[in-house]
């Protein structure tokens, strides 16, 4: 039978853990709003860029950009957006599992796999896994700056232009609501020509490019991909805070349950000790 001192110690240690988890829960809850605002703030831009890109795809341009080129898939690069900090439940691991499954599939089909990693958790996980890492960006904070991602994007896009990568996939968590985050893999390159590309071929038209198509399309498509990645980072941030809040809420509740059980045990042990002592005294008195 455990003694009272041990149980008391255990209770106090769980109580202090509960304090930490409930503090983390409150921190996450206060950050949710901010990260969500950032996420929604970035949406108009990425939607507008997307519209423009779709217009471009449906135009009959004299210049075809390498990003639209459908090549035989020999090498795939995964841009993985993870969180910087842990304690957010299964958020990261659910996404990583999906990527690992795809990577295994690639290996079977003789497709080379490489990674570009965003966030400390992604870097640690795929670093341990082993695999070609093209670039990484970490510690972006709650208010990420688009500039921090330019380097990483450039490495990947340059490799694609050189022909070392045939397919680029963006992996991140999509924010559905506070309770649900959806790990998704989205193909960035080759860019799709849009659904209405076929129907508009009857109407041949093209932009007036100033100064010239190559420079402009290159700049615009790069910006488009940057904006998609940046938006994914913002979205992942919102997911992280939401997942963290839920995970910490559960941890706090579990700690509460555990404390209740331990207190019951403590009372039982205490009662048993008293009973034993009393019966010893009574037994002693009878003997005298």
């Amino acid at each position, binding site marked *: 039978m455990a003694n009272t001192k041990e149980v008391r110690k255990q209770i106090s240690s769980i109580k202090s853990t509960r304090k930490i988890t409930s503090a983390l829960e409150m921190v996450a809850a206060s950050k949710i709003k901010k990260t969500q605002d*950032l996420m929604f*703030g*970035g949406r*108009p*831009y990425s939607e*507008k*860029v997307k*519209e*423009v890109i779709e*217009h*471009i795809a449906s*135009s009959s341009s004299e210049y075809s950009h390498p990003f639209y080129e459908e090549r035989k898939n020999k090498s795939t690069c995964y841009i993985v957006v993870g969180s910087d900090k842990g304690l957010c439940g299964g958020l990261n691991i659910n996404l990583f599992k999906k990527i690992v499954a795809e990577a295994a599939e690639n290996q079977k089909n003789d497709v080379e796999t490489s990674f570009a990693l965003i966030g400390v958790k992604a870097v640690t996980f795929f670093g341990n896994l082993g695999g070609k890492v093209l670039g990484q960006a970490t510690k972006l904070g709650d208010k990420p700056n*688009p500039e921090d991602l330019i380097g990483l994007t450039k490495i990947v896009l340059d490799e694609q232009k050189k022909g070392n990568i045939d397919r680029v996939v963006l992996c991140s968590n999509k924010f559905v609501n506070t309770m649900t985050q959806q790990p998704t893999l989205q193909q960035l390159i080759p860019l799709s020509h849009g659904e209405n590309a076929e129907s508009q071929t009857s109407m041949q*038209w*093209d*932009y*007036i*490019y*100033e*100064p010239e198509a190559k*420079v*402009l399309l290159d*700049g*615009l498509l790069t*910006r488009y991909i940057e*904006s998609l990645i*940046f938006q994914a980072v913002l979205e992942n941030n919102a997911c992280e805070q939401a997942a963290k809040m839920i995970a910490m809420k559960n941890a706090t509740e579990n700690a509460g349950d555990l404390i209740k059980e331990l207190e019951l045990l403590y009372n039982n042990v205490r009662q048993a000790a008293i009973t034993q002592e009393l019966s010893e005294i009574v037994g002693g008195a009878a003997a005298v």
Partner: protein
Amino acid sequence: MSEFKVSIVSSNEEIFSGTADMLYATGSLGEIGIAPGHSPLLTGLMPGPVRVCNEDKEETFFCSGGFIEVQPDVVTVLSDVAERADSMDEAKAIAAKEQAEKDLADNKDNVDFAKAASQLAEAAARLKTIQKLRKKI
């Protein structure tokens, strides 16, 4: 067709969305004016004001580079950073310009020349926008 839709967005917010009957911007090859029914055009944006005119009203925005896409009835301005010119602070703009000039002047080793030059261009354009706006008032 006497008016067209305009949307100005920057990477962290939507700046303007509405209709206009004329729009002026600084394209990468010089100033451009866009009237309704303009043929499709795609061009880069230089740091400078973007003016949206609607009958007698006129709104000015500051864009520090980006792209502009023109369709006959829709104009989309994809700005890197955009702000309403009314809210721009002249003192801040001057300070930024001075800082950029200083960086450019003591361009010894650590300051990236290209970056400093682009900062100066941006600060100068910002100042120009404010001054233009002042004159009108």
